């Protein structure tokens, strides 16, 4: 199937700073694609280049199989954008705002009215249609921001950190909404620095840093790329240096620590990690309490790929 987005060898410079360094991105229709990276990694820059808000120094961008330029209004008509900052008119009501942005894409008034109603229902703002944005809470504002971006039923939607500064309830509603849009046929490009969100909703993820794509794949594929396997925590009464040395000597163990109550062992990829660790403890006569075995998280992947925490 033809890529809905094809970015090849994109280079964007701000003076001496390289914001995008021969960046490549290919997204197939129907994907929920996550762009993950710390602030300044180039996520927003690449989106702005794709949307032709920024010029670029080198490379090519195609949307829907056609070269994207600032005057390709036919392609722009098929795209929706939900920016990070709420971008609505403070002077217009909820309904007027959605209608305004929808009208930029759908001139037909009759068709538009139905789309606006649908968008209002989609984000659950039926009770607030006459409200001005200044009367809405942060979560409701975010929903309005989304409704303005999706009312025209775009085939491709960019969500640029849509859950920043949003309460957990509204965040869940937004994430569910994104999945519903995807189920209805829209391809989603989702940028965030909340790894749990990306892990939850994205079918494929790209980890970016310093304008480069460091790794791309599904959640499982990314986790498989790294050497870190499970993290095994065992509640124990005591663990002396001999126990720790024995654990570290295991081929599957990358590290072992004891904080006085919990013995934590970091393992590499392996089939019998828990059994091997428990066997060592039994050999040394260590009485065990509760045992936790956690698979690697996206945070582990990020840490290993970029060498730093995401929120750095």
């Amino acid at each position, binding site marked *: 199937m033809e890529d809905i987005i094809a970015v090849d060898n994109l280079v964007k410079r*701000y003076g001496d700073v390289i914001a995008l360094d021969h960046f490549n991105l290919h997204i197939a229709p129907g994907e929920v694609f996550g762009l993950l990276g710390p*602030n*300044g990694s180039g*996520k*927003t*820059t690449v989106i*702005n280049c794709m*949307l*032709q*808000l*920024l010029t670029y120094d080198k490379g090519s961008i195609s949307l829907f199989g056609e070269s994207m330029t600032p*005057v390709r*209004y*036919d392609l*722009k*008509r098929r*795209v929706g*954008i939900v*920016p*990070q*900052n*709420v*971008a*609505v*008119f*403070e*002077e*217009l009501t909820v309904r*007027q705002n959605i*209608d*305004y*942005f929808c*009208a*930029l*894409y759908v001139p037909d008034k009759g068709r538009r009215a139905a789309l606006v109603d649908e968008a209002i229902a989609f984000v659950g703002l039926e009770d607030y249609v006459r409200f*001005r944005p200044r009367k809405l809470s942060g979560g409701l504002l975010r929903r309005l921001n989304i409704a*303005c971006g999706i009312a025209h039923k775009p085939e491709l939607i960019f969500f*640029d*950190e849509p859950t920043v500064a949003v309460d957990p309830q509204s965040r869940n509603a937004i994430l569910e909404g994104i999945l519903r849009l995807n189920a209805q046929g829209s391809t989603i490009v989702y940028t965030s620095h909340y790894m749990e969100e990306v892990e939850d909703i994205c079918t494929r993820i790209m980890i970016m840093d310093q304008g480069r794509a460091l790794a791309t794949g599904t959640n499982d594929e990314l986790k498989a790329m790294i050497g870190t396997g499970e993290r095994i925590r065992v509640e124990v009464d005591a663990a002396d240096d001999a126990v720790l040395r024995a654990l570290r000597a295991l081929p599957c163990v990358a590290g072992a620590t004891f904080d006085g109550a919990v013995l934590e062992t970091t393992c590499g990829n392996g089939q019998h990690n828990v059994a091997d660790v428990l066997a060592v403890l039994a050999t040394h006569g260590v009485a065990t309490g509760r045992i936790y075995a956690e698979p690697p998280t996206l945070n582990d992947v990020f840490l290993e790929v970029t060498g730093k925490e995401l929120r750095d």
Partner: protein
Amino acid sequence: MQAFKAALHVVMDHPVYLLVYVGFLSLMGVFITSSINLGIDGSEFTASKAPFAVIDRDSSELSESLAAFLGEQGERVEVTDDPFALQDAVATGQARYLLVVPQGYGDEFIESARTGAEEPVLESTFSYGTMAGTLVDEQVNQYLGLVRAAAALEPDASMASVLARADEAAAKAADVETVQTPNSSKPADQFAFYLQWGTYTMTAAIVVCVGLLMAAFNRTDLYRRNLVSPMSSLRLGMQKAAASLLVTALVWAITCGIGLAAFGSSLAGVPPAAVALALGGALVFALVPLTIGFLLGQLGASEMVANAVGNIAGMVMSFLGGAWISIELMGPEIQTLSRFIPTSWYTEAVSKSVHLTDVTLSSAAPVLANLGVVALFAAALFAVALVAGRVRMRSAEAGGNAAASMTGA
């Protein structure tokens, strides 16, 4: 027309601005215009009569005669001969001029006139709030001069005879007649003054309304959201411009409509084409605040800034442009400065318009030239606004979301 409608919604969301800046300030203009005397009432000259007081400690024939002469020129008020009462009378304006004739003054004055000895001195005080006291002092000197001349000419004449000759000479006065020239003030000047006052009304109202409208669209994120839409920048810009022009025309129409309703009758005798020229001039002037509002929008100015700029620019432009006080009454530096203010060209155009007796291309040429200069000011401001907007949006491009939020949108 979605952007056009949204732009009007933005303005209409602030009805208080239209009410205060257009309605209230226009009515203020009506009251101020009605209350000031533009020198257009009647054609007869009436000398002003200032209140004065004479403290006569001499009680001579000369002092009484002098007081009687002043009484014909002004309005004598009685003041007690007490230091506090005298100070109060001048300080409160009860008497604009206070004359104290010391004891023995009459005889000494006649003696000095005939012998050439040093003249005795009168004590006098002027009120500081007006020139009226100075004029009364001039009249005192004039009368004493006549007495001095009569006494010197007839060294043996009695005091009564000298004073009679002086009174006879003082009674002779030149006839004063008011002559109307083409440049004289006429009733239509009232309407002209209202339109000139309207520079403040229009500047404040249009700067604020257009500034709000433009700023709403130029908030960085909204601007970007519009930019990624299928609506071209040109179409979007045209719709915003159309909305701004409509708001400008609305402010102009209300301002001029109120003026016509209040002072339309003063335009009797003024050719309709001349009135149209004055009103058209106001519309050309309105382009200046329109471009200032556009500039503020390009800079992303807040509502508070738009209000401040609208008011301050309105007042400064109106004052320096001679809309409130004639430029001729100001110092040479201010007069030079005023040529760099569009208002001065506009006020001149309006004054010239209402004085046109026949509107032809040649008679209207000076007015059109003035309005052309006003239009050039607007064009220059528009160019500056375009550059400012471009610089601002470029700075917002750098650094994605972080920079976008830094621009304060």
